[in-house]
């Protein structure tokens, strides 16, 4: 235990240089998310994630935002446990009829101003599950959506890029 901790201190960050294109996008996003977050939201953005019917693929990539490579928290963006603490709802999946009320109530429990980001091709319009008797549609079929981040699933980099776009749009709204 101590050995591992000690090594973590003396070693260079375990974060290795990602492939060039990726790294550039990440660095660029990192800087702008940080600046915009400071300006618009007083250094912090609280996100409540809601799985409204996803296949769990989108969740895996949202999780990845917390790993040492993307380290979302360094931007002041963090995931919170309750919608009452959230600025943003990050919603995945086609909204199933069985989750519709859960999503509506989570939205109602989130204090304004609030933004909704629909994640994935499913969150956009139901994706491959559109048209099923069990699916109400994309996220916007149930709650108003401010931004869609497409992809199946979107990569962590795409998710970061999307959060930045949201910050800019939210700034214009006010």
């Amino acid at each position, binding site marked *: 235990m101590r050995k591992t901790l000690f090594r973590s201190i003396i070693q260079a960050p375990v974060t290795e240089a990602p492939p060039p294109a990726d790294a550039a996008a990440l660095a660029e996003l990192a800087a702008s998310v940080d600046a915009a977050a400071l300006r618009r939201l007083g250094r912090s953005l609280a996100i409540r994630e809601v799985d409204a019917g996803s296949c769990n693929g989108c969740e895996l990539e949202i999780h990845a935002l917390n790993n*040492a490579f993307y380290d979302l928290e360094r931007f002041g963006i963090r995931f919170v446990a309750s919608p009452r603490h959230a600025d943003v709802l990050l919603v995945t999946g086609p909204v199933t009829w069985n989750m519709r009320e*859960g999503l509506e109530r989570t939205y109602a429990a989130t204090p304004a101003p609030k933004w909704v980001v629909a994640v994935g091709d499913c969150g956009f319009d139901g994706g491959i599950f559109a048209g099923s008797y069990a699916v109400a549609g994309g996220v916007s079929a149930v709650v108003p959506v401010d931004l869609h981040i497409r992809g199946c699933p979107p990569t962590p980099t795409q998710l970061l890029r999307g959060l930045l776009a949201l910050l800019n749009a939210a700034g214009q709204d006010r």
Partner: protein
Amino acid sequence: MEMTAFDAITNGRTADPDHRPWPRFSVDEGTWAKTADALRDGECCLLGYWGERERVNLALGTPNLSAICVLSLENVDRVFPSLAAAFPPAARLERTIREMNGLLAAGAADSRPWLNHGRWPQVPEASAPSALDPHDKYTFLPVEGESLHQIPVGPVHAGIIEPGHFRFTANGETVVRLEERLGYVHKGIEGLMAGAPLAKAAQLAGRVSGDSTVAYALAFARAVEAATETVVPERAHWLRALMAELERIANHLGDIGAICNDAAFAIMLAHCGILREQVLRATATTFGHRLMMDRIIPGGVACDLNGDGRAAIEALVARIRRKFPELVELYDNTTSLQDRTVATGILRPALAQRFACGGVIGRASGRTVDARRHPGYPPYDQLAFDVPSLIEGDVNARVWIRIREVEQSLALIEQILSRLPEGAIATDIRARAEAGAAHTEGLSLVEGFRGDILVWVRLRADGTVDRCHPRDPSWFQWPLLEAAIEGNIVADFPLCNKSFNCSYSGHDL
């Protein structure tokens, strides 16, 4: 040699000529009842149980999966005899058959709805007109006794996880009963598959549970290939296994980190998260998609391994080989962490056996089944690997099985890379219309990171899917979580739940 219960059920029967690779028999209610007894007595295991318009199917295996078959009750007129009456592990499946196919299991103790929450604007085709009146309240099991209180949790949980409802009944800190309610992410996947062209159905299969996209795509492809007697090129088998082992490693790393994190040991999550991310980056480089979605297709694989990909995976394996032992040592030497995981959430081996529970959960409770070994599929018959098994059945055992399986998967990947055959990576799926059969049916069993995934498919003569039933390993694991948590403190539930890591989406379908 003494005749086994499985033999007694299947001997002398004529199999349906269009079902492969294992036989499908039509049986009468007498045999159905005999099967229920064999299941109850542990002489056979239940691998799957699904309905159709007027038919109920049951995938049955010997306890070690050395033999498998499908039994069908045909011409069911709305009611059929319950298996769950004698064999409770079938209960949730019968509740689902009622909702999906409108066929009622007579004699079952529990006839409450399961996936149908009374919210669908229309019910699945052929289903009973009203499995649940939307205004009916779902009744949870009654609890009686002094000083008991209930804690309802979900469907929206505090973390970044899938939705489901847990109703705890606690006596002070101690859980006396957990009752699960699932179905929130039911997407109607079987309904979407019916009538779909093969390519669309394959994509749907790969999204039954996104964390197991490789395993599901593989299971679907193998069922289709069985039905159509398609011979897949050798190289494709090996590339499929490469993807499957990468998926297993990525998920196990994520789970090991997440379990430790739920015991407030965040450093493990951080380190495992790094390794997991490196797996996903290598798969993105190699196969063009971090989760490898849609890379396995009926007939083979959609992309080949080139020099860059090989280098990326070799580097990845070397890195994990270097880093992972340190993490294992860290886990092994941290007594405060083991204080949380040892003797927590114990699943008794007898219960795991009864539910034919597969995967890490089963193998941490004394089971030794692994679909890669039995019934087995290529190329695993040509590869050397162990199937780790422990008897303790606690959170700690489930962590250790995952650790050992990561090591086994690394060794498998090394073998695959060093012996990967040359040649084509895909072949066309033979349409069997010429063969004169209106329908062809195929079954497959594939080992995903959670356990054995079963896919059964019936294809029409034009090659489209008539009916497909994917069965997630979680069907036989979720009920066991209810048992494992009993007597533990409420605060240990996240730890137990994470150590099971059942799929919501795969179960809810």
